[in-house]
């Protein structure tokens, strides 16, 4: 993941208590508060890390506008980096808007194992809005396989699940309800 974001300072340059590679490692250990099998780095929420004075500034993009976990995540970053001796400031970046296309393949695999169907491909063009009001759930032709039995005979129950980022589905074969991480 580190390759896709700004990493302008090498570990040798870092005058902070730890190098930026160590900072990225620490960030990768911070779980999403609601889906602990994936980290905030896995989700693509951490957009960049840069040196700032004696500490670092971590650029974070929220997943959903009203996600109640955002404040907790900011606090976890500050505390997580303090634990390795790095003073951190968190900067919230709104643009470009967060998309599930930033999620790593490994994270998708872990989601599936956890019982959450991972997101399919989101909208082409990160900020494109389909003003007809057809969400990516119906725009894509991709079927959502059941994370338990792999059946593709699944059905949307509701566009919203236990958190804003998930939709509710049901498998027509094993009859189990499951969460689908919405393409976004």
């Amino acid at each position: 993941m580190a390759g896709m974001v700004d990493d302008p300072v090498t570990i040798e340059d870092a005058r902070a208590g730890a190098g930026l590679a160590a900072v990225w490692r620490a960030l990768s250990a911070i779980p999403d508060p609601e889906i602990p099998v994936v980290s905030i780095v896995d989700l693509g929420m951490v957009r960049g890390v840069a040196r700032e004075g004696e500490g670092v500034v971590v650029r974070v993009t929220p997943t959903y506008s009203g996600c109640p976990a955002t404040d907790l995540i900011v606090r976890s970053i500050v505390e997580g980096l303090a634990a390795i001796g790095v003073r951190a400031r968190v900067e919230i970046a709104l643009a470009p808007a967060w998309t599930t296309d930033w999620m790593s393949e490994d994270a998708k695999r872990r989601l599936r194992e956890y019982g959450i169907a991972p997101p399919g491909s989101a909208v082409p063009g990160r900020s494109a809005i389909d003003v007809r009001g057809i969400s990516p759930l119906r725009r894509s032709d991709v079927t959502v396989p059941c994370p338990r039995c792999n059946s593709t005979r699944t059905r949307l129950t509701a566009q919203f699940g236990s958190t804003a980022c998930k939709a509710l589905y049901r498998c027509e074969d094993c009859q189990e309800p499951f969460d689908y991480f919405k393409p976004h």
Partner: protein
Amino acid sequence: MNDNARFEFLLRMGDNALVLAQRLSEWVGKGPVLEEDIALTNVGLDLIGQARMWLSYAGEVEGAGRDEDALAFRRDQHGFRNLLLVEQPNGDYAETTARQFLFDRWHLLALGAMTRSRDERVAAIAAKAGKEVAYHVERSSDWVIRLGDGTDESHARMQRAIDGLWMYAGEGFLPDATDDAMAEAGIGPDLAALRAPWREGVAAVLAEATLALPADDFAQRGGRQGRHTEHLGHLLCEMQFLQRAYPDARW
């Protein structure tokens, strides 16, 4: 362009989201089925998040030291700039659904236009909010169809709800001097131009729902200028109670 117009424009966007979110929160714990209780809460949460982004920016543009909380909790009803539609009471589930459907369809078109705003912050908020609202539109449209094309009872109630709220549906397409200034500056959308695509989308859903498109296009206006129906004051009483009774209370 002056900053007062931009402040007003941002308040209008923020207040739409805030007031509707407060209405949706009234359903929490008593939705008709669990999935809907959860969906209403999720939509409300998205809108609260959007309201925070708009009102924070409004406070910065105003430059009078008011933050999102001061704007949300310390303004009286005449200071609110939301559409009359979003302050209407929840009523039965058909009315809640109709209100959401009519608003969502306007909201998505307005946000879609704002992603091309010359104000980068407006464009960023619109791009983020628009992705969320696409799901809102799909859900509320689904429910209009499900209830409209459902039983005789659900059909009758859905039609009554659409007819009853229709007079509030057109306010978002009636620009005033603030909107003209924003559109001219390339910051806000050309509201009148949103009417045709809105009508087309609404008509298609109503047709699939076997519901009639109301014939009378009279539109009551005033909310965006601070003249509200009697319902907003009651909503604010509850929403603002804590900060009014215990100013600056924190938890």
